[in-house]
């Protein structure tokens, strides 16, 4: 089950970069997060998940990556504000895709932008945080998935 959910995020990120930047996104080996100080890459956004699943979806990317990506969106003068908006948009997009795949019970909040390189990942007890590294044009970014299926969810 968890693997299927992670695949949804992989496909969503791949599709996003296919649409926005003519592809080029590739995934590194996923691993379990647990070191907050190293998870963040400069700009991060988080979306809270409730309903059939609980937890958070994070997307974090370096400034360089975002500056390289923003022109693909027509923003020729990237700045920090646009970078923050972009990580929020990407987080929202992949969470929205997950909602489409997992149904209305997968409730998503609005993106919350987290400033700074340190990313304090909120992980529910007895759950883990999967880190999905994404490289696009040599620029790193990460999708962090920390979800726990609600006990009531069949």
């Amino acid at each position, binding site marked *: 089950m*968890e*693997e299927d959910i*992670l*695949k949804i995020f*992989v496909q969503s990120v791949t599709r996003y970069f296919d649409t926005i930047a003519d592809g080029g996104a*590739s*995934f*590194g*080996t*996923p*691993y*379990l997060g*647990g070191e907050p100080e190293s998870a963040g890459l400069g700009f991060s956004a*988080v*979306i*809270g*998940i*409730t*309903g059939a699943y*609980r937890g*958070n979806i994070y997307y974090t990317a370096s400034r360089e990556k975002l500056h390289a990506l923003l022109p693909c969106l027509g923003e020729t003068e990237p700045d920090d504000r646009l970078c923050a908006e972009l990580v929020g948009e990407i987080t929202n997009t992949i969470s929205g895709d997950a909602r489409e795949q997992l149904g*209305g*019970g997968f*409730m998503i*909040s609005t993106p*919350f932008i*987290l400033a700074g390189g340190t990313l304090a990942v*909120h992980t529910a007890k*007895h759950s*883990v945080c*999967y*880190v*999905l*590294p*994404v*490289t696009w044009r*040599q620029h*790193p970014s990460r999708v962090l998935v920390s979800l726990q299926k*609600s*006990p*009531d969810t069949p």
Partner: protein
Amino acid sequence: MIADQSPAQPAPTRGRRLLAPLVYLSLALLIAAGGYGIWTYTRDLARATDVNNKRINLAGRQRALSQRMTKALLAYDRDTRAQLPANAALGELSKVSGTFNAVIRGFDAGGTVPGTDGKEFLMPAVTDAEEKRIVRDALELWLPLYDRLQEVASGKASAEQLASAVDMARTRNVPIFDLMNDLTNRTEVTARASIASASTPRSVLIAIVSVAVFLIPGLYLWSRARAEGRRARAALGSLETTYAQLSTQSANLATAKAETDRIMETVQEGLMLIDANGIIGEHHSRELLAIFRQDQLAGLSLLNLLQRLLSEKMFNTTKDYFGLLFDANRKEKTVLKVNPLTDIEVNFPNPAGGFIHRYLGFSFRRIMDGDRVARVFVAVRDVTPQIELEKKLREAEKNKDRQLDILVGIVHVPPSELESFARLVETELDTINRTLRAEDFAAASTGAQIEALRERLKGVFRSVHNIKGNAALLQLSYFQKAADAFETKLAELLDHPVLNGDDFLSVVVAQAGLRSDLGDLQDLRAKLGGLRSAPAAHSQAALAPAGGALASQLRKLVEDAARDLVKSTQLNIDDFAVHTVAADRPDLVRDVLIQLARNSLAHSVESPAARVATGKPAAATLTIRGLPPTADGLVGLAFHDDGKGLDLERIRARAEASGLIAPGALVSPDELVSCIFEPGFSTAAQPGAHAGRGMGMDIIKSKVVDEAGGAIEVLSTPGRFCEFRVYLPAPAVAIS
């Protein structure tokens, strides 16, 4: 609801009730009688007036008649003397004297007399004394005169008679005239008196009737005024009573409100009233604000609040349910039974990001106004702790079997060994995670990078296989199975010609599963630690030399594996040698011996029947013995079995199939044997629980050669035996 407390109006008594109509009836009769009286008096007055007027007129005419009579007599006398025709005067004299005579006699005795209007008039006799005197005096003068005049009027009177009559007329004319004049004046006086006397009762009656006419509405109004006054006084008294009652009730209400407010302030439940539009009423409990995380709720729509907190589907259900609540045609009992909000999850936006999810329990009661549902009473409770507890219980129930499996597996394991196993799993999982955190392999488009990913995968495989071997050593079947399932996934990935990062999703998920199992193991260890006695002995065991414990574990491992593989074995261990070599690296030695034992049983030891067929004892003999130190200071252990040894042909075939050696290439036996240390290399037709993944030898090589800097020597005679000699640097700590 406040009842109407105004006192009833005092009921009029029966006598009072009858009196008023009687009074009004009497007054009405009085007015009728008075009216009749007035009418009668008016009629009589009119008659009296008419009679009196006629009498006055007749009296007045008498004056004129006396003069006309005298004049006619004198005219007759003159005409007679002059020998002139005197008939006219004679007629006049006859007519006038007759009329005068009739009238004067009428005055005297009453009777019909010729009226002034030519009609007969019934003359009443005079009654007044003065009139009587005048009439009497007049008659005394008149009657003799009338006799003389009658003689003249007959036309037969003599001259003397005529002269006598003239003389008498001349002498009596004035007195008669005066008397008639007096009669006229007196008649006027008596007539006025008569009219006045007749008018007085009529005036009295008019006055009485007038009074009565005005008295009825006056009395009615006075009666009404009195009644209204009484009513007003009664109402005032009633008002005062009501005011006093209201004051009492107000005081009671104030007390009740204060108590209600106190309850609403302190009750640990959200209480409110909503109308048909879902609008929250003015008064609600303070807890409601806390539950909904709002500063103000009165006047807000509960549905709108819930719309922001519930999923779309749940909100639509709730909206429909509110419709049912206010539908008076639906039985309340039935509606309450299908309440969808008994324990609903709501999600409040968290200012710090994400949501705050709580569970709220709603209950409803209708408040009816006649046949209409006027309001609905809503009670809300934050049931999060109860729900969370229930969920935990359900979760615990779900995990019960899994934890029971783990528990059954660990109860027989000494705490020190369990701790050692947990530490090993922790270490291997960390190793796996470090291996997977190779983000630089993300863009693995080149063959080298793919190969590097494969190497990482093999590293993960080694860790999992090691966990599996150690689990088997401690008979932790749950972990053994979990690791085996993990290995299956890894083996599938190793078969992929091209590897991408996202291919590792199953790996990381399996890793998370193992970590979760490890968490459960740690929890159970902690719980068991509290239950188990003699902790000192356990800690002592943890510090004890590894040889003895490891030997017994290995024996058990071999027994179990042999039983699973339907083989028969006997394991001989030189405890001291094992103890010596494992002195400062017990985990490594343990891991190596585990893999050697499992490998031997899986690949070298034959079935009892096959052994017997080749002249061997049915039970294979496995031996672990010490080796003399090498010249370069390595100490060693030998793992020997009397099985069939290495099958070089099969090794070659497998090596060729997997590309380790070229088909038909000239390869020395040593080179062929080295193939068995390649990760994933196995001559087993199918992987099994104990071997066949091709990772055991890889682990041995990795730990002995790569990790410890030792060496491995393999001796084998096909059909006779197989012996692995493991050399390790001498322990840094001397073993006494």
